[in-house]
């Protein structure tokens, strides 16, 4: 069977929509129905690993609740922000996973274009993701240079002279990135970015029957739970 491929807009909408049942039915087990739906969509998209990771997170949360009364108080206290964080956001995270794991940045950008987002947002958005690996490379190169110069970028140096250590890492990185940014600007301009013409794409991003189906089922579930709860 082919992996399910949803339009990014469907996934964005689901991420937002899930707020409604969670706000309405907070604390009830019906929430699980919506979590299950997200998991089902993940499985249909053949994202088995992510689904497993999610189940693991859920299991951790549940298990911690069960054994917490046997644990020393201090441990529960120490971990409490994690418990709250995970517990509070778990249902949202399920839809978040669906969005990030099954969506290519460029498809999302096209979806944003179709949603009539302005050029400024779409270009900035694409540039943002394009620079993340660059930042990692820069960080590695500067960390190497620091080692050679006998400056460490570790816990000890950060603790003893945080400003200096931080400055040594941060300033060359910003200089370097500003330069890359300028070079990218020049290159992009000469490749016609930001021109008058409407951009075209080879990729197809379209709301299909499946998308409407997935959204429809979600709405049916909401209405159903609403009446049962009543």
């Amino acid at each position: 069977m082919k992996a399910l491929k949803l339009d990014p807009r469907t996934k964005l909408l689901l991420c937002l929509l899930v707020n409604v049942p969670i706000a309405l039915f907070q604390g009830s087990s019906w929430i699980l129905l919506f979590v299950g739906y997200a998991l089902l969509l993940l499985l249909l998209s053949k994202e088995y690993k992510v689904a497993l990771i999610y189940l693991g997170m859920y299991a951790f949360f549940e298990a911690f609740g069960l054994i917490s009364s046997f644990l020393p108080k201090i441990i529960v206290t120490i971990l409490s922000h994690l418990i709250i964080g995970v517990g509070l956001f778990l249902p949202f995270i399920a839809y978040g996973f669906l969005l990030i794991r099954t969506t290519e940045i460029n498809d999302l950008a096209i979806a944003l274009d179709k949603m009539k987002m302005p050029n400024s947002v779409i270009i900035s958005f694409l540039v943002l993701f394009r620079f993340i690996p660059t930042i990692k490379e820069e960080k590695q190169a500067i960390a190497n240079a620091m080692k050679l110069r006998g400056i460490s970028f570790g816990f000890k140096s950060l603790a003893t002279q945080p400003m200096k250590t931080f400055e040594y890492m941060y300033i060359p990185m910003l200089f370097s990135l500003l330069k890359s940014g300028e070079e990218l600007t020049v290159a992009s301009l000469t490749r016609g970015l930001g021109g008058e013409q409407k951009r075209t794409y080879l990729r197809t991003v379209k709301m299909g029957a499946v998308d409407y189906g997935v959204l429809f089922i979600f709405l049916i579930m909401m209405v159903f739970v609403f009446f049962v709860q009543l």
Partner: protein
Amino acid sequence: MNNNKLEVKDFISIGLFSAIYLVLYLALIITLGMVPVIYFFIAAISNLIMGTIYTLFISKVGKKYSVAIMGSLIVLIVSFMTGVVWTKLVFGLGAVALAEFFVSRGEYKSFKLNTISFVCFGFLLFGTYASFWILKDEFMQMLIEHSGTEYADIIATFINPTMLIVIIVVTIIGAIAGSFIGKGLLKKHFERAGIV
């Protein structure tokens, strides 16, 4: 060509600076996110660091809506990655709107207004913390049903009003300090190197 409209070079700066902000923020979450109590002060710590980026960004781009676009991108991406809870969006976009308001009042040149703007901007990811307090009651109810009152009580000790005030105050102080650090570093390095 001193027009005040955003152009391609500005879009690229916005993307670049948002990327730096995001990467640094995520690095902080990964290293400090597991540490109890400190977790609540990540926003404050990040403000110390991000002040420089913010100052540099403003002096590089300094056009209407630039702060708004950068802030919204960061809020939306973090929210969609970690689950879109309405609190995150409301607080985040609210903070960004205020930041844009103040920075543009000073026409991107007044240090005082830039600092106030950054204090607002410094709250853009505050929605996550805010959720703890706003959604507290339902959450506690669920915890009690799940694992008993005692457990819920321990966890509830964190989520008290005093704690919230402390977090807010420290975040503000962090932002003000960050803005001053940013001004200092800009003068020390970027102006001397002839970049801005």
